[in-house]
């Protein structure tokens, strides 16, 4: 059998990229082997677009103001999916390990927390891109809505909303690490918690005053405000996108700190060994 290696041998041969690749492969294999998972991944965004798209059409016929209203609504829906799917993908990434009682194997390996977070982010971006693409196609063919009409702002909108999904997803995973499976339902619930405050389809001013205060603390709100402005006047609010970026950076630092603390707490309580089906 192969002789045991030394620490110096391995130090050269253990790039973090390989560990992140291992994590991504673990989940890719899972999806390749499971067609129900693949269907589920694309089903909800498509259903949301189809259902709420028709609702918006019905409202438009009733109230008029066709273009602005449908475009705001569909734009908000499609971009909102980018945020929500990233967040849910992060939750699923973690829960799959809990369900398969695999956390012990993972964290007894040379995997570092930053690798794990890297894997979480890469997988969630990949999964959400795959899951929202069919919804974009549905919006195009059913409602004649082309997401590309946002032009050069579109990559910024999607990237900033994914960024928002990453840190909020990290907070949800931290919650599960800290409180174990008892908090699972809370995790699913939290995946939708921020969305109403971000005002994706309606003006922030519609929200009650205390909610508005929360709203302006969220990066996603600035993205949706810019999107709505662009639909109405064609102008992109770059200053809003800048604020969203800075807020994302600040919240990411906080969420990574909370994640590291939750991991330490799980190591103290035995959570990494005990979590399972």
């Amino acid at each position, binding site marked *: *059998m*192969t*002789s*045991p*290696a*030394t*620490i110096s041998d*391995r*130090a050269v*041969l*253990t*790039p973090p990229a*390989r*560990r992140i*690749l*291992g*994590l991504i*492969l*673990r989940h890719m*294999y*899972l999806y390749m*082997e*499971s067609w129900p998972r693949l269907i589920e991944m694309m089903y909800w965004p498509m259903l949301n677009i189809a259902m709420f798209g028709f609702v918006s059409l019905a409202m438009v016929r009733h109230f008029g103001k066709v273009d602005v209203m449908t475009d705001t609504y569909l734009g908000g829906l499609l971009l909102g999916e980018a945020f929500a799917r990233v967040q849910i993908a992060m939750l699923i990434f973690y829960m*799959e390990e809990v369900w*398969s*009682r*695999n956390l*012990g*194997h*993972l*964290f*007894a*390996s*040379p*995997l*570092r927390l930053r690798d794990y977070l890297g894997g979480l982010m890469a997988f969630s971006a990949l999964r959400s891109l795959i899951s929202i693409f069919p919804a974009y196609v549905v919006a195009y063919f059913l409602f004649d809505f082309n997401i590309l009409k946002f032009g050069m702002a579109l990559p910024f909108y999607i990237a900033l909303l994914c960024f928002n999904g990453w840190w909020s997803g990290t907070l949800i995973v931290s919650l599960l690490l800290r409180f174990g499976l008892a908090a699972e339902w809370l995790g699913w619930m939290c995946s939708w918690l921020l969305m109403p405050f971000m005002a994706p389809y309606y003006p922030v001013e519609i929200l009650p005053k205390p909610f508005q205060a929360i709203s302006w603390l969220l990066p996603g709100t600035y993205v949706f405000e810019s999107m709505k402005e662009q639909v109405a006047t064609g102008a992109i609010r770059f200053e809003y996108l800048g604020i969203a970026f800075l807020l994302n950076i600040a919240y990411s630092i906080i969420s990574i700190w909370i994640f590291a603390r939750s991991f*330490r707490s799980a*190591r*103290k*309580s*035995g959570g*990494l*060994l005990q979590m*399972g089906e």
Partner: protein
Amino acid sequence: MSDVKHSIRTTDLRKEFDGTVAVQSLTLAVAEGSITALLGGNGAGKSTTMGMLLGLLQPTSGHIEMLGRNLAKDRHAIASLINFSSPYVDLPNRLTVRQNLTVYGHLYAVPKLHERIDDLAARLQIQDLLDRRHGTLSAGQRTRASLAKSLLNAPRLLLLDEPTASLDPDTADWVRELLMTYRAETGATIFMASHNMYEVERMCDDVIMMKRGAIVARGAPNDLLARFERENLEEVFIDIARDNI
């Protein structure tokens, strides 16, 4: 001072869960290249000790040194040189054996991964199982797949939790042979928790018996039999468990 090198050294290790002491004042040294057994009844502190050695549990106090390095400071460097197998920590059931080994091969940065997987599959006689899902394997097959994972990185220290639990006598004997061959060929250290006294007598150079989180007896199997004037380790185990000694 002894010239013996140690793969594991713990000093005054203690672990409490909400005020309940699981492990207390655990000071031990496991010689490099040895096969050492950790024995004890349910709740003796074996799994907690294993969890702390794997870095999955943070000790309340005390110090752990593995392969000459401080676990608290060099956990990731140490993790690349050790590995473990436990029937209580599963591999993903929906992945095939090959997929699981590929994933862990990347996590451990195993060089020439595909060759390594084929080599291990031949050694562990799991070539036919490589493309089957882990969840569809029998207990014996799962144990062999899990052992393949634990040998992927050719560990210098192998931690095993009940390596032959729920295996038929033939498969269990085969696993024991494999582990002893691995130790003989590589000089690796094997530290294992077991409830199978026959296995411990046959494989181990050193035995550590725990009760209520502390070490209550230690020595080579024959030394323990002589000291406690018993015919086999099972009798020693039962006497210790029932406070007859």
